[in-house]
């Protein structure tokens, strides 16, 4: 467990540096890193500070947030299939973001965009818990997720199609698949407080989630306040997913793949899974963001393409296992 934490904590900065040296402009790794700290490199300094640095920082921040949110939701619902992207929380957040952009709320108020995305995510998580709370099985959860995703996706398309802006209609791909391309430090400062606050809330739920391993009754009898736990979970998840989606679109599967791979290393204990999933999520999104740049260096290949190619087969495998478990 501590070995795993140390390992992951070492991989994150390594990938961070690698990510900083990757880009369509062919510059040596040494020069690009030096340009980050020195003004002597002209436009390269600008590229490093305003394009690559925010991109690398966002990959860590958003990846960690999504990994953590996945681990927390799974812990609460006691279901390995619960993942913000799959159960419609991300698409609800995207709907909130699209709404804010197209009504001018995002331009009118600095925090308008992430707050609207957070509100969307709140509705999404709320609906999921309402429809498929801890007592609902995997099938209910997946069905609720399909319904919420479909609804949020349709409304997002509607808002984009109603927009008088001719570019809006083509943006559905971004909102469904996510990308970290061409973000600036402004976006980092916008998303940071939301992911940080959400993460602090979620990381404190470990005890309650551990107790929930034994079911709601047992957890309550061990002194866990379930109403408070639920409220914190909903708000923490919405804050992380809302902030992340507002800036990077809906990036799916990170919250599914990461906790699933790491669970055996922490012996299934939900509290320990939280921290390692945050680190693992950062690693996975960094890898995905490196992959999209290696596969198509000059185009904006969406992150969701890579995460889904990795995550969807795993998701099918999990459904298969769940089915066997029930049958």
């Amino acid at each position, binding site marked *: 467990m501590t070995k795993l934490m140390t390992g992951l904590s070492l991989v994150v900065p390594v990938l961070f540096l690698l990510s900083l040296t990757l880009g369509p402009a062919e510059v040596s790794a040494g020069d690009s890193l030096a340009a980050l700290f020195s003004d002597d490199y002209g436009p390269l300094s600008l590229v490093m500070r305003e394009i690559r640095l925010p991109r690398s920082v966002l990959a860590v921040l958003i990846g960690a947030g999504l990994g953590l949110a996945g681990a927390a939701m799974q812990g609460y619902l*006691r279901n390995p299939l619960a993942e913000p992207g799959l159960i419609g929380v991300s698409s609800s957040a995207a709907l909130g973001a699209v709404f804010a952009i197209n009504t001018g709320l995002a331009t009118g108020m600095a925090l308008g965009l992430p707050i609207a995305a957070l509100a969307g995510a709140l509705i999404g998580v709320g609906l999921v818990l309402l429809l498929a709370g801890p007592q609902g099985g995997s099938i209910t959860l997946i069905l609720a997720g399909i319904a919420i995703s479909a609804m949020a996706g349709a409304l997002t398309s509607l808002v984009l199609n109603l927009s008088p802006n001719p570019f809006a209609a083509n943006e559905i791909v971004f909102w469904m698949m996510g990308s970290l391309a061409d973000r600036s430090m402004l976006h980092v400062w916008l998303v940071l407080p939301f992911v940080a606050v959400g993460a602090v809330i979620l990381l404190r739920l*470990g*005890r309650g989630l*551990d*107790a*929930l*391993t*034994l*079911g709601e*009754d*047992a957890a*309550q*009898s*061990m*002194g*866990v*306040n379930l109403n408070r736990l639920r409220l914190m979970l909903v708000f923490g998840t919405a804050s992380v997913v809302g902030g992340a989606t507002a800036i990077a679109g809906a990036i799916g599967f990170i919250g599914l793949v990461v906790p699933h791979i790491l*669970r*055996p290393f922490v*012996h*299934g*204990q*939900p*509290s320990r899974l939280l921290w390692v999933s945050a680190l693992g999520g950062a690693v996975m999104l960094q890898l995905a963001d490196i992959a999209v740049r290696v596969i198509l260096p000059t185009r904006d290949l969406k992150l969701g393409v890579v995460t889904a190619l990795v995550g969807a087969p795993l998701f099918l495998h999990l459904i298969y296992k769940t089915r066997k478990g029930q049958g």
Partner: protein
Amino acid sequence: MSVLRVANLCVVRRNRPVLRDVSFEINPGEFVGLLGPNGAGKTSLMRAALGLMEAQGQSSLANLTAADRARAVAWMPQSREIAWPVPVERLVALGRIPHLPGGGRLPPKDQEIVERALARMDLGALRSRAASRLSGGEQARALIARALAQDTPFLMADEPAAGLDPAHQIGTMQMFAALAREGRSAFVSLHDLGLAARHCTRLILLADGGVLADGPPDAVLTPDLMARAFGISVWHEHTAAGPVFQPLEVL
């Protein structure tokens, strides 16, 4: 000073009264068995007494704060949920949650309590196996051990012996009885009247939403009460090997 005092407890679910005016008290050193036919309200009574479900009337445990209650009573629900493949050892250690501020390694004192619980439930050989992949009976033992690790003066369990093999059924009942002899208390619902006859110090018989009888096993397991509560005839004798109780036929 009783560990549980219930007075005039009433539970209504979906406009249907489940329990009416139930009152009793459990004292230190008692091993109380809760008997009753299916649907008599055993689970409702235990959950209402713990404050886990809506009820009218008084229950000393339901009045406590969640944190105080977690140090006063350990509860093993009937549904044996183990959501994740946690090793048995760690599952049992979850019982220490109410006593620890959170996270980190178990302090030696707590580790010792966990070890005792593992030993009591004969789980030494299973300690590193994933609890969710154990057999039903093994899971039940692990969950009882988890409740033991909570190290409370009072232990409540909903059908802890169901699904155990005979040796472990007897072992579990002896363990509760031993706890009672140490001065703690146990309140356990069960369907095996033979086990109840041999191990409990006192029985509460629930029927038709009320307490039909409350007293020592001999006073409760009478042919008359058994006929009224379960509609069965019984054979109940004191032998050299202790009391033997056998349900015979449906009346």
